[in-house]
């Protein structure tokens, strides 16, 4: 007989609410780092499972969100370390906008592939730092909190990332 205890309704309700409230934020952050909807979906689930397994640490709402987003960042970084690949192949399943013409989608897809190649040159932490700073537009202090490192380290990651991408763009132009 299984000794798994079914969580009570109240606990279940609280867990569902926690997932619903933070799903978009967590998913968006992970997606920005891994750039793939299916992977982002799996990693979002993984993030919530990790967080809910230690839910006794989730008493303070403000800290809980920061902690959750840090788990999300680390989960995405670990994923990139394990699978050093980037895929932009979900356009058919998840169109960027239903109003866009097929030509626009193709151009966007090519542009995405071009960017994906550039992003592959970055280390997982450089990539996460760049995404959080330049795409999410978070201040360096917040990026440091999410990556669990100092502001100086974040600046170093960002400078390296911009340098690598600049060289990549210059190399492609030649």
């Amino acid at each position, binding site marked *: 007989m*299984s000794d*798994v*205890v079914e*969580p009570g309704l109240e606990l*279940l309700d609280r*867990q*569902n609410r926690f*997932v*619903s409230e933070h*799903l*978009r934020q967590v*998913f*968006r952050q992970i*997606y*920005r780092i891994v*750039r793939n*909807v299916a992977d982002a*979906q799996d990693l*979002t*689930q*993984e993030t*919530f*499972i990790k967080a*809910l*397994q230690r839910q006794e640490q989730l008493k303070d709402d403000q800290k809980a969100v920061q902690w959750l987003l840090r788990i999300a960042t680390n989960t995405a970084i670990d994923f990139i370390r394990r699978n050093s690949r980037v895929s932009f192949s*979900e*356009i058919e399943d*998840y*169109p*960027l*906008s*239903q109003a866009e013409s097929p030509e626009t989608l193709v151009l966007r897809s090519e*542009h995405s592939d071009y*960017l994906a190649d550039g992003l592959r040159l970055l280390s997982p932490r450089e990539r996460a730092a*760049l*995404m959080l*700073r*330049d*795409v*999410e537009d978070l201040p*360096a202090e917040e990026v440091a909190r999410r990556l669990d490192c100092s502001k100086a380290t974040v*600046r*170093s990651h*960002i*400078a*390296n990332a*911009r*340098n690598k*991408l*600049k060289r990549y*763009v*210059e190399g492609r132009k030649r």
Partner: protein
Amino acid sequence: MRATKHPSEATLALHAGGDLGPIARWRTERHLRQCELCQEEVAAFQGVRQMVSDLSAMPEIPWNRLASEMQANIRLGLAAGECVREPQPVMTGLARFSGPRAILALASLTAVVAAGLILQRPTPAPADRMMLQATANGIQVRQGSEVMGMTHDAGIRNVSYTANTQGSIGESFVDPVTGDVTVRSVSW
């Protein structure tokens, strides 16, 4: 014109995104006002930032469907986690004394035994040292092979002894039969 040192690529990369501190920013701006080469570098970094910010576009996600799918999967994941989680072993009997606990317990035991052996070991008295010893019916002072002692009858009880460091010993007692009080003292 005074030759100026160019800021590093990292500094220009950070400047392009407004990520420098106030002093470094002021110094870099001052340099940029007179250096076209670095202005071009900063422009290139800003182009890269622009390109990266294009990644902010999110695909259309059916959030409601995703939320319910995820809630179900997360519930399943949590339940699976519970199944595979190793139960915390209840420490009973000898299990308490495994690993570091066993090492610590063994070390403590060894220390106690060693201390006992050291304390138990009779220390041989140097030949010239004066020693006070109890005997079956009195006390004695021994120095090397010479002995000086005091004895009393076996029936005498409650004898009080005195000794001093100069080698003098004494005894006093009350004879239980006669009631006589005896006080004796001898010196080396």
